[in-house]
């Protein structure tokens, strides 16, 4: 095809070779300079981020805090300058992640003793287990010694959830229970009255009457998203209120028991018939938007939702009434009110550097002064709820937050030791305290989400969940 001695374009081979050589040299030079530039950029970048170092260039102590990206945490990030001004030799750095990612990152850090975080935000689900494993610092001595911290002001129910063997291993940043939020105007227009202490049967009938396909308003907004902290947090109290449970005293799973099945069927049918569309993807944030934009007549969720609704959706907030978390079973049998109890709390892992600086930070973030001071920046309705009695005694808070007394009562009456009417070997209202619960809860929540989406029947979902629970119990040695 090619004539001997010449390339296709007619150049001599030698000329081609020479130009190829020059081309190659230029290419090598270009690659080398790019590589050098990348290396320099990488070196420069890593020294400024200071990953792993515990002091800044100017000798300040670094306190690295892992937080979840909820609005209360985002608020404190903006207000940390007050702490740094009062403690000029401490620099606070935040690692903000979404809930599941933050949990994974913190668990990985603490279980491998990487000590990357000086302070971490965990909940009352992890605290007792991690304290038992010896991974957390006992904060009680430091907190109770400081008079200005007012240790006895902390709500005792919340502190109990964070205690182990007489020590307190986490300081509560904000705590929540559950309640019903409803639109007063929609209730009035339909001639309905919400009692202060409703039952699930009443809620179901309200949802049926207020569900309006024409205006696109759902009767009730309920969580359906995959996650033990998402749809299960809403569903388990319904099971508890109806007399069902996860396990009996012998750790045999009870997910296919009649009471549990009835409660789950009730929840799934309620959200499929009178709940928001696409509920199987809706977690706390999605429901907040749904309710705040006026697309639902009721919302059953955390008490900590009330503040952000005031902040983001003031018109709907002004029209919102509040009632206790529903009690009773779906068949009308009276049961106990089963509110949940959850607190996002700050811990100092054992063995981290700058431990005393970390403890100072924890004291500031959960102290009474921060709560009062933050009101001027975030508004009185939105200050960190559920941790201190004094918060609820503040006259400005009582005026700005109509939900305050109900929330305090709900938090005080939640009982983690006795979540359900049956006797059970576990603690925890909307979760179970135990490291194996994370993966089991996720598996079960996947099944429930599929049932809510309609791709699986409730019976099949519960059967699969039961099998998952049995294998988890066996592999953890709780069930023979």
């Amino acid at each position, binding site marked *: *095809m090619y004539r001997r001695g010449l390339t296709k374009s007619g150049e001599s081979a030698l000329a*081609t070779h020479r130009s190829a050589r020059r081309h190659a040299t230029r290419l090598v030079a270009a690659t080398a300079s790019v590589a050098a530039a990348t290396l320099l950029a990488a070196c420069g970048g890593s020294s400024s981020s200071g990953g792993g170092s515990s002091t800044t260039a100017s000798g300040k102590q670094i306190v690295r805090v892992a937080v979840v990206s909820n609005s209360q945490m985002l608020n404190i990030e903006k207000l940390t300058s007050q702490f740094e001004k009062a403690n000029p030799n401490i620099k606070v750095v935040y690692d903000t992640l979404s809930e599941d990612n933050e949990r994974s990152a913190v668990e990985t850090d603490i279980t491998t003793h990487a000590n990357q975080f000086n302070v971490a935000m965990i909940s009352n689900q992890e605290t007792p287990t991690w304290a038992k494993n010896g991974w957390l610092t006992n904060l009680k001595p430091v907190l109770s010694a400081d008079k200005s911290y007012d240790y006895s002001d902390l709500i005792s129910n919340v502190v109990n959830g964070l205690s182990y063997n007489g020590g307190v291993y986490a300081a509560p940043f904000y705590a929540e229970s559950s309640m019903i939020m409803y639109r007063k105007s929609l209730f009035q227009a339909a001639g309905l009255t919400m009692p202060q202490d409703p039952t699930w049967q009443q809620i179901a009938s309200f949802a049926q009457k207020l569900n309006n396909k024409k205006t696109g308003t759902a009767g009730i907004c309920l969580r359906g998203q995959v996650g033990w902290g998402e749809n299960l947090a809403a569903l388990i109290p319904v099971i508890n209120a109806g007399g069902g449970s996860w396990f009996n005293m012998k750790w045999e799973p009870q997910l296919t028991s009649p009471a549990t099945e009835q409660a789950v069927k009730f929840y799934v049918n309620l959200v499929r018939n009178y709940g928001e*569309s696409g509920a199987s993807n809706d977690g706390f944030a999605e429901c907040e938007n749904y309710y705040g934009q006026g697309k639902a007549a009721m919302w059953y969720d955390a008490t900590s939702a009330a503040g952000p609704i005031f902040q983001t959706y003031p018109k709907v907030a002004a029209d919102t009434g509040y009632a206790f978390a529903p009690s009773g079973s779906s068949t009308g049998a009276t049961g106990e009110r089963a509110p949940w109890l959850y607190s996002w709390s700050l811990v100092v892992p054992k063995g981290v550097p700058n431990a005393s600086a970390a403890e100072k930070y924890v004291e500031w973030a959960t102290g009474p002064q921060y709560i009062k001071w933050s009101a001027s920046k975030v508004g009185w309705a939105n200050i960190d709820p559920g941790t201190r009695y004094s918060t609820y005694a503040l006259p400005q808070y009582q005026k700005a937050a109509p939900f305050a007394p109900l929330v305090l009562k709900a938090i005080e009456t939640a009982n983690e030791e006795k979540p359900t009417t049956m006797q059970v070997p576990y603690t925890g209202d909307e979760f179970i305290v135990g490291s194996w619960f994370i993966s089991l809860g996720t598996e079960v929540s996947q099944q429930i989400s599929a049932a809510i989406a309609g791709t699986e029947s409730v019976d099949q*979902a519960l059967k699969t969940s039961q099998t998952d629970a049995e294998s988890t119990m066996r592999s953890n040695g709780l069930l023979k």
Partner: protein
Amino acid sequence: MSVTAANDEVQVGRKSGFVSHLHRRKNNTGIPEMSSRERWSRRAPLLPALIFTVIVTQVPFVLVIWYSLHGWNTLQPGSNTWVGLKEYRLLFSDPLFGHAVINTIIIAGCGAIVSMVLGVMFAVMLNRRFRGRGLARTLLITPFLVVPAASALLYKTSIFDSTYGLLNWVLGPFGVHHVNWIGSHSVVAVVMVLVWEWTPFMMLIVLGGLQGESVEVLEAASVDGANAVQSFFRITLPHITKYIELALLLGSIYIIQTWAEVFILTQGGGGASGTATTNLPYYIYQLAFNQFNVSEAAAAGVIVVIGTEVIATFVLKLLGSLFADTEVLG
């Protein structure tokens, strides 16, 4: 281009410009031999890069094998003990693992095949000249450049949402209302995002093949009376077959590793089993970061690597024979 046995320096020079000006001993095949010193002087500059690559890729791999032979669960202190092949046995008897394998095959297979079909269509379209071809090409390539997590988030919030999503809005006039794409059609949703991301990749490789097609053959075909469809299926398609296979092989290797889309869209849920979108990468993530069962996750990783190697070797042998059979025209 074949190298004759003749002593032709110019031909050798054209083949590899770096060697031509040096006189060499030539053996029967005409390829010059090098002394051992010269071989090492060529390899030595590569050694730092090679050592770096080996350390960065092989040391973690060896560590993973090491972890997989222990029973380590980071939430259970004291579980980091030698257990031999126990984790592998556990995995093979775990129905969820087999389920994840099947899910991976379904999701990766559908994703690769659909994006290949679309890629061929777009490549044929872009192979013609038309006004705005440059703009069309840029727009068609862009999805491949978007980070997978961003694509998945975009689809989750703006396109698949049952109330506010664009897909339901576009399909509204056809009687589609409030379809919960992510909840009720989870696998379809994940595959849709994968197809959106990978079609440009397939398209580019096939486009390269199309542009190497000889125009004279196509002209001859049309002179002989073949219409567009016949000429596509009988002339173009056989020519680009090996490009399609190459793209499928390369694309599948990456699409099998899909993780971000599953994590953001469905968290592994969906379907009649509740876990229809849990593919192998997501299952390993769950083992490692939900159960904190590091050893089982490591064992699953090793099994996946071995399985992928077996399949890839088999496919490469198949492709290799195909490459040897077909010849470039002209």
